[in-house]
């Protein structure tokens, strides 16, 4: 199975057509495209329309999660609807199965949120806004775990966890450690390890690095466009290419 992925494409009015030429070649090298959030700059419907035109009628299925930028205008439902209208499957605490080179690939996705990593993480304690911060991440992680478990029994040859925020600190290498709590949470990794997955894809950390692994051994890839320095990267799963 050939999985293409990119995040943090941050499209705006001046972005139309930048990625489309590369995306139109996807069927040469991939069976599906994953978009790891921050598809827009401010989460406006107008920016979502730019993304929609960029990915409409591509030769492979497109599965996405939103990122924090896609929430900035506080209209994530509209952004989601515009992307769905262009044929994109948008996940938020949900899963989908894609037929991929004769096999079934399950993708469970959520935006995720921050909080940090073991030993240096925020706790669900104190002021209501602090508790809500951590609970937001916990709810997201719980929904990811449930969505991955939903894929059990659906005859998937591989399962992928797709998030915007990072499940591990490994792929934040290059980012200032002080901001790690705003870049991801171990709760996402715990969810992935609890439910099981073959690959975890995320974005968000522009200054981070591509490769990491959860404590449970699931490989993690940060596909933020500034990190991979391409329109997308391709990962072969299942050993058959």
């Amino acid at each position, binding site marked *: 199975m*050939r999985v293409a992925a990119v995040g*943090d*494409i*941050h*499209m*705006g009015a*001046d*972005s139309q057509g*930048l*990625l489309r*030429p*590369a995306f139109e*070649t*996807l069927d040469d*090298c991939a069976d599906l495209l994953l978009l790891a959030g921050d598809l827009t*700059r*401010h989460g406006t419907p107008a920016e979502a329309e730019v993304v929609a035109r960029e990915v409409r009628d591509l030769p492979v299925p497109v599965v996405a999660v939103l990122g924090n*930028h896609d929430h*900035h205008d506080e209209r994530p439902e509209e952004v989601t609807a515009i992307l769905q209208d262009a044929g994109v499957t948008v996940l938020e605490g949900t899963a989908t199965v894609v037929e991929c080179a004769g096999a079934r690939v399950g993708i469970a996705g959520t935006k995720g949120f921050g909080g940090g990593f073991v030993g240096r993480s925020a706790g669900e304690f104190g002021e209501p806004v602090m508790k809500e911060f951590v609970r937001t991440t916990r709810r997201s992680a719980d929904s990811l775990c449930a969505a991955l478990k939903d894929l059990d029994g659906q005859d998937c040859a591989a399962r992928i966890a797709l998030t915007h925020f990072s499940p591990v600190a490994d792929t934040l290498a290059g980012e200032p450690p002080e901001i790690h709590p705003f870049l991801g949470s171990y709760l996402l990794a715990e969810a992935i390890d609890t439910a099981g997955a*073959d*690959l975890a894809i995320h974005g968000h950390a*522009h*200054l981070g690095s591509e490769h990491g692994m959860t404590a449970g051994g699931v*490989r993690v890839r940060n596909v933020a*466009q*500034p990190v*991979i*320095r*391409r*329109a*997308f*990267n*391709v*990962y*072969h*799963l299942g*050993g058959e*290419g």
Partner: protein
Amino acid sequence: MSDPVAPREGTGGNVEYRVAHLHDRLAAEELGELGVRAEIRAGAIAVTGTVPSAQCRETLLRVVREELTGLTVHTDIVVAATTGPDHAEEL
């Protein structure tokens, strides 16, 4: 970008807050930019990162010039590459 020019009146001399205000402005205005780094290094400001388009780069450099007037600024802003990969990773 490296030549110091006269500081704006009323900005004071506190470089740290001016760098913080630059970050605020990059996030709040048209760029919505959170991924660019501005750091004080050896008396100068280094502004580094990757932006999604050439127009974003121009806008960013203009904002940097406006916010950091009078300071020595070094910039290294890359426009994100948009070509496909030449190989895949086998997992």
